[in-house]
């Protein structure tokens, strides 16, 4: 490996074997993670899984109990936060209430002893970047949630950090504003080229925004991959269930291309689990189809059942199909000519065998 490629491959954040304990609680459990320079990286998982703790360790607000943490190759494990080239957008913004917007934004520069006129100029510039130039003299309490969020962003970015950490930055915003900000954040990140590490418990947000996603549960890292891979090829049952909606059909691996479902039927599903492994076949509702009994394409795997309920979503209809041993959701897009089914009608559910994923625990 040559000198130059070596340099390019230094990760923005390199985490090796990091564990964080609070007394008996293991908040983060021996994780390894490498975040590339310029990446938009999401830490995704349910509440309490250790996302914030991981982020705080990168920022220096918590120190790892064990393991090594590098930022652009430099070990920072127990360096205090003010000695790291990293800034944070806090969960509830944590703006300083006794300073106005401009003073909030300039705080980091003031602490770095930048001269006064530069502080003013750069702070104004950062505020303009988030379109809040006109509110510079306001108090944080006089701003809406969305505006506070932008101030927090400007306050962090004005310092030109090498890595920006964001802890559920959009969590407190309503849906419409949230979607707007998702787009804006993404655009900003592309323009600035700064590495963003973004914590969220919202899988849709993670899928929309990130280059790569790390899924966490109970302090453990379950899968790190691009959004598409996470959705299409979940590493285990938890990831399949947590990302999007899915039907998990319990079964046992028979061979590399066949799974025997809990009702005894054999379906085609390729996996590299050993024969006899307890698995679930993850079938996404939008990958399944409902037909009149016997009307399924011959290449499809099928299961027969009865319509138990219908949910009308406008752009789609979700049928809940009762089998003898479980229930399945099937999502049909609301296109002209969409097949309609009655309550308790007998139907055949089918899917393309290549559209399912086999997941173990």
């Amino acid at each position, binding site marked *: 490996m040559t000198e130059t490629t070596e340099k390019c491959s230094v990760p923005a954040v390199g985490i090796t074997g990091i564990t964080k304990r609070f007394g008996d609680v293991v908040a983060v459990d021996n994780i390894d993670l490498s975040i590339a320079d310029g990446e938009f990286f999401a830490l995704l998982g349910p509440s309490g899984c250790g996302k914030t703790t991981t982020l705080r360790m990168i*920022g*220096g*607000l918590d120190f790892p109990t064990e393991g090594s943490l590098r930022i652009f190759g430099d070990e920072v494990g127990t360096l*205090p*936060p*003010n000695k790291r080239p*990293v*800034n*944070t957008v*806090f*969960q*509830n913004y*944590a*703006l*300083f*209430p*006794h300073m106005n917007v401009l003073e909030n934004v300039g*705080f*980091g520069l003031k*602490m*770095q002893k930048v001269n006064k006129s530069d502080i003013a100029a750069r702070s104004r510039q950062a505020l303009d970047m988030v379109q809040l130039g006109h509110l510079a003299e306001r*108090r944080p309490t006089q701003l809406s949630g969305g505006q506070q969020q932008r101030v927090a962003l400007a*306050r*962090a970015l004005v*310092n030109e950090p090498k890595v920006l950490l964001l802890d559920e930055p959009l969590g407190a915003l309503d849906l419409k504003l949230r979607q707007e900000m998702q787009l804006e954040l993404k655009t900003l990140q592309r323009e600035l080229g700064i590495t963003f590490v973004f914590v969220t418990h919202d899988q849709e947000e993670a899928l929309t925004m990130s280059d790569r996603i790390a899924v966490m549960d109970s302090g453990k890292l379950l899968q790190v991959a691009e959004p598409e891979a996470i959705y299409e090829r979940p590493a285990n049952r938890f990831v399949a269930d947590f990302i999007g909606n899915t039907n998990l059909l319990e079964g046992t691996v028979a061979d590399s291309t066949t799974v025997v479902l809990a009702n005894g039927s054999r379906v085609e599903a390729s996996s590299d689990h050993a024969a006899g492994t307890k698995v679930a076949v993850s079938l996404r509702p939008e990958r399944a189809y409902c037909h009149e009994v016997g009307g399924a394409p011959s290449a499809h795997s099928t299961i027969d059942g009865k319509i138990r309920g219908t949910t009308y979503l406008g752009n789609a209809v979700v049928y809940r199909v009762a089998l003898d041993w479980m229930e399945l959701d099937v999502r049909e897009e609301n296109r002209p000519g969409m097949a309609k089914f009655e309550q308790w009608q007998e139907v055949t559910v089918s899917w393309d065998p290549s559209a399912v994923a086999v997941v173990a625990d």
Partner: protein
Amino acid sequence: MSSTQQMRGTTKWALNLNAVLVYLFFYAPIFLLVVYSFSNDNLVGRWGGFTFNWYREFAANDEVQTALSVSIKVAIISTLVSVVLGTLAALALERATFRGQRIFDALLYLPIIIPDVTMAVMMLLFFTQGINLLDSWFGIRLSKGVTTVTLSHIAFSISFVSIVVRARLDGMNQKLEEAAQDLYASRLQAFRYVTLPQIMPGIAGGALLALTLSLDDVVITQFVAGPGSTTLPVYVFGLIRRGVSPLINAVSVVMLAISVSLVLLSLILQRTRSGADAA
């Protein structure tokens, strides 16, 4: 409908009456005190025409003047010291974890629940022993006086200051300090630029409380005072025993005026602070 309205009317009327009575109860004595401090009569409660005599005597009386200056000196020093120590104690309890924190927490508030007389006896005993020990071990000769009075005032003020500051610290968002550190502030800078401005109203309130407590105290001061350390309240107390003259009315009005000015001052300070912040 109309009966509830009537009830509401009655309730309102009763509440108003209550307010009037309470205020009357509070302010009538003050009103009387101020009025009779201008009474030209040698009896405390008799009106003998308007005069400034008692205030003239107040200004001319050396004992009163000395007592006043002792009071002010003790109040200022004990306030400064107890504000610093009380704030540090509050910070230690709210922001740090250390062995024996619970016990320290409980002990810190002891002076508030201990009766004044008990505290006074404790202090007296402590100072007597301490002075003897200093004398016999190091040959340092100390006697009861302004120093012992000031030390006692510091001792009972710390608890009050730390309670007030702690309440403020407790209400403050701790994430702010983390945000400051994330923005390149050292721990000291985070304290100076974020924590301190946030808890300033608490510190000012605590200081005011300490000042008032010091200016007010009779019981403890009387026990630990020595020659030359008579404070104004102790002096007034002594006057009563010696037979009352309307001079004590004038002295009391002056003390009242000082207290009221302190409160006003703190209000003005807080207002200009927030005014400056808004600009």
